[in-house]
């Protein structure tokens, strides 16, 4: 029995070179980055700094969760940054005008869900190309945030609210716990449930999924709504952590969110990828930024780095794909 399993494993290893090679490459990149940073700075390998890096990565990971589900269906969500900013600003406004904290957060997440659902309608029901639909939503969300804020910045939010971004549970920061729980939920949803199966099937061949009786519209609606919700949660985490909200706060997340998903091995063609990969992708990106800061390189360079990283990742993905064929 075990011999048979072993031979089968070896045979399939030869067959799935790409699917095994890529995760190994990614993990190696992550470890190499850690090693380099340890050598560069003695402060890197300390409890405080590691916790710090993890905390910095939480927003990116949370955005990446919903985004991964979308990209797995061969879609894309360019509105995550806009949704994040709008939800952050809205919640801050609500809190300032005295709305109870749970209600304000619920409204924020609800708005994220609605915008995501709107994307789902545009893509899944009306049939717009995903990048057009979500790009339009991005501008609408940012426009609404502009109207909401009238050019101001809000800060000084209630302490109980700030806890979700800056508080601790025992010695571990609350955002890390929240992110870990969310990631676990998404991991199980995608890899162990019928819904997850539908998402992968839709991304691999939409037509075949439809012909096989999968409700492709419902799946599209679901993944974009999930992406709206995770972007909203990331907005709450960020507002709580910064203790501030302003219109431009979502700007970097469009590129960085996509970069971590793609770097995590989720293919833009759909059907291939995982939550684990996205987490590694987000960590790599956070470490790169962390490293640039450690080296004292201006934050103005970050755009060049994320742009370059995303192009490299997508390019690497297509090269690996060719190699495997």
């Amino acid at each position: 029995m075990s011999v048979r399993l072993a031979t089968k494993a070896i045979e399939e290893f030869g067959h799935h070179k790409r699917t095994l090679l890529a995760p190994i490459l990614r993990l190696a990149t992550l470890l190499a980055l850690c090693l380099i940073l340890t050598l560069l700075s003695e402060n890197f390998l300390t409890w405080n700094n590691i916790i710090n890096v993890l905390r910095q990565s939480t927003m990116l990971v949370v955005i990446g969760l919903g985004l991964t589900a979308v990209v797995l269906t061969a879609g894309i969500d360019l509105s995550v940054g806009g949704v994040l900013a709008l939800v952050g600003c809205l919640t801050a406004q609500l809190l300032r005008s005295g709305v109870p904290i749970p209600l304000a957060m619920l409204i924020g997440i609800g708005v994220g869900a609605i915008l995501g659902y709107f994307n789902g309608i545009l893509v899944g029901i009306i049939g717009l190309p995903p990048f057009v639909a979500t790009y339009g939503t991005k501008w609408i969300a940012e426009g609404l945030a502009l109207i909401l804020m009238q050019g101001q910045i809000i800060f000084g939010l209630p302490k109980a609210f700030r806890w979700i971004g800056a508080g601790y549970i025992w010695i571990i920061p609350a955002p890390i716990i929240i992110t870990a729980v969310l990631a676990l939920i998404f991991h199980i949803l995608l890899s162990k449930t019928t819904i997850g199966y539908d998402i992968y099937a839709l991304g691999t061949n939409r037509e075949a999924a439809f012909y096989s009786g999968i409700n492709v519209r419902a799946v599209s609606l679901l993944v974009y709504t999930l992406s709206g919700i995770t972007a909203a949660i990331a907005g709450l985490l960020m507002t709580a952590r910064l203790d501030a909200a302003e219109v431009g706060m979502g700007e970097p997340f469009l590129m960085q969110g996509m970069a971590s998903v793609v770097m995590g091995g989720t293919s833009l063609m759909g059907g291939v990828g995982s939550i684990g990969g996205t987490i590694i992708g987000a960590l790599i990106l956070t470490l790169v930024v962390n490293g640039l800061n450690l080296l004292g390189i201006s934050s103005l360079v970050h755009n060049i780095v994320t742009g370059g990283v995303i192009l490299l990742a997508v390019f690497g993905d297509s090269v690996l794909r060719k190699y495997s064929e």
Partner: protein
Amino acid sequence: MLDGEPIIQVKGIVKDFPGVRALDNVSLDIRPGEVHVLMGENGAGKSTLAKILMGVITPDAGEIIYKGKSIQIRTPLEAQSYGIGGVHQEFMLVPWLNVAQNIFINREPKRWKGLPFIDHRRMHEESAKALAKFGISVDTRQPVKYLGTAVQQMIEICKVLTTGPKVLILDEPTAVLTEREVEKLFQYIKVLQSQGVAIIYISHRLAEIRRIGDRVTVLRDGKYVGTVPVREVTDDTLVQMMVGRNITQMYPRHRRASGPELLRVKGLCVKDGPQEVDLVVHEGEIVGLVGLVGAGRTELARAIFGIDRPVKGEITVKGKPVWPKSPQQMIRYGLGLLPEDRKRYGLALNMPVTKNVIMASLRRHFRFMIDSQKIEKLSNNYINELRIATPSAYRLVRYLSGGNQQKVVLAKWLDTESKLFIFDEPTRGIDVGAKVEVHALMDKLVQEGAGILMISSELPEVLGMSDRIYVMFRGRIIGHFRYDEADQEKIGALMLGIGVKEADAS
């Protein structure tokens, strides 16, 4: 006919695609002024050979000899430089360019020599002239998008002819043409022939081959079977060469008395498709549905299965009226559709066998959480039962051969425990061995009480497998036969619309 030096020879051509050897050591020679017919069943390798000669794909081994010199054809442009041109099987027109722009694509007459400015007037004049040879007068300033498939096909032919080819390859050119246009095309082929142009004509219609062919080369499963002069060979011999075995072995069928009604379609109409279609399928029978490409057979299947919405009509499944809204709904009613284009509609090529097998029946086994071991066990059962050749249940479906891919689609529908199957060209593009297995499986299904509506273009298959046969022509059912009252001539004539009365023939 003409015994001149061959203008083109191919020797020992081999071409592999993932999971299947499309051409295996094929050789033939083409002489100037002859119409050389390439014949064979679907998947025999005819089109692959045509694509190699046209420079669309390159062979893995073998040699092409042009007027005695060994040459390589790596691109369509190189093929053109040797005077080899052809009409591709795929649509090669640009929808929003106009007729003249399509005919002269990348060969536009220039206004001034050496400058890139296009002489539109000359281009339109010459296009109109070329089209007029076939008696077609369309506005050459119209985008081809707005033209019918027959006219589009003639434009493709004109596109080749204006390059002045020495070797002309026509891959099933008459599939979408009307009788009048076929007539014009055949006349023109004779003219070209008298000018010494060699013509490679791909077809499996015996009548056409008899009319214009000089010699015929038969391929079977990618292998060369033989070349014979058309005049010296009987139809039976040709069919024998094409199929390669006795008809009774191909169609293992045990007919039985049919049971109660499974599906009834009444007065079904689909926009630009089937009109007023009535048909019935009972338990325990295979019902054949034949017709030419474009007769509306696939559209009918799609409408019944809830993919396209019918305009009006009634459908009852096991006596219960249903209005098809989606495949999801029809699967609940016990229907299954094995689509014509399995790679596009039937399979997720980049998923393993396991995930394809479970695709239509996932929620029959699991409500929310999935047990992947159970899926593996299930898949292995089907792999054994249907003898799917795969090293493991986790092999991606794209690496399986056509026949094994089709078996995976079959397994998917078997696992839904459907009672009524619509099989659209179930054996297209798979090798003979797998064909027989698919036929045997269909027989087994109906023995166990299922009903099958089988769409097929291969008359021997339809005659060998069906209990009853419907003939479709231009969206309508115009003939209905029991298997023992049907024969190739009767059905073939009806498919072409010969002798159709206005009243419904059934």
